[in-house]
């Protein structure tokens, strides 16, 4: 675009708005629409209790996204550290509350909204790591001393989330951080070493897992182990999916879902429900739309000003986070990964995830909107 000649000139609100990537937003809307349709079917052909709510939440999510996109990228750079520390504090609050007799809790009730600090932490950790890596020279990153700080940045919140206990989210944060470590240029062999370390420590880690977590992993390895109990979900999910065939049983006609054989059909297992009714073709459409969305993310990272290392890292981190959501959810409901309780964002019923991914899309867009200028530190 020819509007921007001076690389350091700030854009007006109107310019920023028209710099948004509207194809990206369109795809988001398509996915949300698929979500609402599936929720409509899950409720037996009614917009209550899920479809309408989900639509409203997506609307709210769109507002959050556009607001986040209109904010100048410098703001994210500035608040990275305080935001990180604040979120860490919230995590601590939730943990302490959970361990002082208030029952296991993952959220803080704000009255109108249940805030999950672990969800915020996914954002915070990306911002904080990106800030650290952008300010640290490659030579230092490549030394042992240079990675101690980022390891601490990651390890502390992951530990906090792990004891909630929320294995799924802590693993996601860990994978996402690993991707950022890799992007920052840390040598291959160090990853190999870490992987070896984890493998060696696996038996000890196994010991620290809760029984239900162990069960999930065992059940994943052999669902027939307990077909009425822990294996029931995954067996029924496979039946739903497989019986859908290539073209599906038709909208509102998924027998496994409508007769309640399929558990959690409106939340974690919504992909299965959709694939029962719309078949393999339907499943591929969802995967393809998400692939486009993720490809756009990579394009944003390429496209923004070369000097904006922080921005590129934030975009890649948040994009990876979204990819992990989609991949882990789909892989677990089709029996490729253990059932770890990760929803399919934009489609699964649930407000927190929608707001949180839409916020992260907004931050990505904020960098993209200001793609032709340098980041003023």
């Amino acid at each position, binding site marked *: 675009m020819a509007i921007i000649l001076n690389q350091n000139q700030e854009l007006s609100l109107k310019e920023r708005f028209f710099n948004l990537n509207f194809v990206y937003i369109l795809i988001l809307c398509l996915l949300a629409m698929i979500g609402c349709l599936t929720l409509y079917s899950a409720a037996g052909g009614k917009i209550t209790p899920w479809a309408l709510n989900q639509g409203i939440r997506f609307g709210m999510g769109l507002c959050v996204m556009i607001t986040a996109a209109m904010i100048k990228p410098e703001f994210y750079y500035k608040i990275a550290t305080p935001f990180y520390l604040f979120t860490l504090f919230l995590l601590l609050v939730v943990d302490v509350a959970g361990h002082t007799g208030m029952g296991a809790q993952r959220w803080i009730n704000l009255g109108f909204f249940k805030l999950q600090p672990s969800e915020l932490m996914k954002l915070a950790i990306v911002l904080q790591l990106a800030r650290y890596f952008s300010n640290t020279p*490659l030579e230092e990153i490549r030394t042992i001393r240079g990675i101690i700080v980022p390891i601490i940045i990651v390890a502390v919140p992951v530990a906090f989330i792990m004891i909630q206990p929320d294995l799924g989210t802590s693993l996601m944060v860990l994978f996402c951080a690993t991707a950022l470590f890799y992007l920052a240029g840390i040598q291959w062999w160090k990853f190999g070493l870490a992987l070896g370390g984890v493998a060696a420590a696996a038996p000890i880690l196994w010991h620290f897992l809760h029984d239900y977590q162990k069960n999930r992993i065992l059940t994943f390895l052999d669902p027939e182990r307990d077909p009425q109990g822990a294996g029931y979900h995954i067996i029924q999910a496979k039946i739903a999916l497989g019986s859908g065939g290539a073209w599906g049983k038709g909208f509102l006609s998924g027998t496994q879902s409508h007769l309640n054989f399929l558990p959690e059909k409106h939340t974690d297992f919504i992909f299965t429900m959709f694939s029962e009714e719309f078949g393999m073709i339907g499943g591929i459409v969802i995967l393809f739309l998400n692939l486009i969305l993720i490809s756009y993310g990579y394009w944003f990272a390429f496209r923004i000003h070369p000097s904006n290392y922080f921005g590129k890292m934030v975009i890649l981190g948040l994009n990876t986070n979204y990819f992990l959501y989609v991949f882990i959810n789909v892989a677990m409901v089709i029996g*490729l990964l253990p059932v770890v309780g990760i929803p399919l964002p934009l489609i699964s019923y649930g407000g927190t995830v929608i707001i949180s991914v839409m916020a992260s899309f907004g931050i990505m867009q904020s960098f993209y909107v200001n793609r032709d200028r340098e980041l003023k530190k």
Partner: protein
Amino acid sequence: MKKSNDKLRILLKRSLIIFSANIFLFFVLVGRLYYLQIYQKEKYALLADSNRFSTRLLVPPRGSINDRNGVELATNIQNFQALLIAEQVRGDINKLLEEITPILKLTPEDIEQIKKDIKRHRRFVPVKIKDNLSWDEVSTLMLNNHRWPGLVIDQGLIRYYPFKQYTAHPLGYVGSVSEKDLQQSDAPLLQVPGFKIGKSGFEKTYDESLRGKEGSLKYEVNAYGRIMREIEKIEGTKGEDLNLTIDIRLQKAAFDAFGDEAGAAVVLDVHTGEILASVSTPSFDPNLFVDGISQKNWDALLYDEKTPLTNKAISGQYSPGSTFKVVVALAALEAGVIDEKTDYFCSGKMKLGNHLFHCWKHYGHGHQTLVNALKNSCDIYFYETALELGIEKIAAMSRKLGLGTTYDLGLENQKKGVIPDKAWKRQQFKTGWQKGETVIAGIGQGYVLVTPTQLVTMLARVVNGGYEITPTFIKRPNNEAPKSLHLNPHDISLVKQGMYEVVNGKGGTATRAKLKIKGIEMGGKTGTTQVRRISLKERAEGIKKDEDLPWKYRNHAWFMAYAPHDNPKYAVAVIVEHGRSGAGVAAPIASKILEEAIKLDIR
């Protein structure tokens, strides 16, 4: 500057690598979808259907059992049940139960059980409150239906025997399926809870054809087992009706003729062998068995000395006594041992070796020809005749006339009786035949045993002119003419004359039993059989009067009869257990039965 370029280059390069990995992982997901949804589709489609569909068998109505005129002897009646569906109840279930308690007369134990059942089942499963509701109970519940949503009245069919004890023996009864039944048959209907199967009598023998063909109801269920909708309903077919030759009017009359006596009577159509009545007294109410009989009722039936559970008409084996003289006479006539003029002198006793055989008449009958010997039931005449004739010829004629064998009656526990001969004795006792045994066989004592059904068959074969009819409960559609036994008609008319004299002759043994119908006469033969041997000592001391003995030691009383004499149609055999006197007790019963048969004029 160069260094920060390095950093950027690494970032971009590595982001491409991660992007490629992402794309690769997406294709892994697509591959998995292909595997599950295309490659394994059939497998999962089947599993989804087996999740979703459930099939229930529909029990067809059981075929009824009818008498020869189409009167239902075993039928199905409506059975009303009160059921409660917990989830449809508005308000408090306990309050509802309280309200219906006085109407259905529920006991506190019933209420306890109902509450337990409700807790045990899912809330949409109907729980039984009370079975076999009376009309009053049904109508009261119906009238107040609006007050108790969730309370439903369900109707089913239950087997019912309207003639109760009159038909209990040949018909039998149905009961719950036992473990043994399940081992013997894998018919799916047997698995249906509450299904009833024939346990005895015709209900058991013809169970499979009475049962009918099951229907099925295929329906869709959800994960909790709730029925969502019917998919397909295949109606079953009602079991085949069983049409018997019995005439229930005659059956009732025959049964009632016994009063309190224990015994059995069988009435045949002498030309077809159709059994018009077959009773065994005392009897029982088969309806008690349908829902499972109580221990108390069962014990009462089992330990009754008059054995109500035994069908004496086919399972009771008795010495034929003097009725057997008819067989001996025919055998002797055929063999030429006697003719109508043959004359034996009865002095009241006969000596064989050093053994003395007595006639029932202490001072003897004097000179006797065959007709007189039958009329007076003279023992000496038949002792002499039997001695001349030999046991083999007696046995041959017995078998020819249908004794010593079982028939295709479709009933269990049919007894064969005993027709002794030399081979039989050797096989049974490993000793030779004694002449004295022939003597007592001549008056139907000793080893000879017959059932009432066999005896009436014998009589029918004689009086129908010597045709080999066999008794049957089922109407045979194309009635083949029975084979001739090639008996000499003159011999038959001689024996019939003897039996005519028994009832109608001056001084005949059963003159009191004459039919009270003008113009129709009957013939018959009495029989009295010892249940215990009379010892020499007792005979010397003077025989105790039979009625002074305890019931179970008294003599059995027989009477067999046919009517009308000139053109016989009906034959009846009556045994009264421990009835003491054939003429006094059994003959009146037989004549009552024949009178009824003639009045009914059964076609």
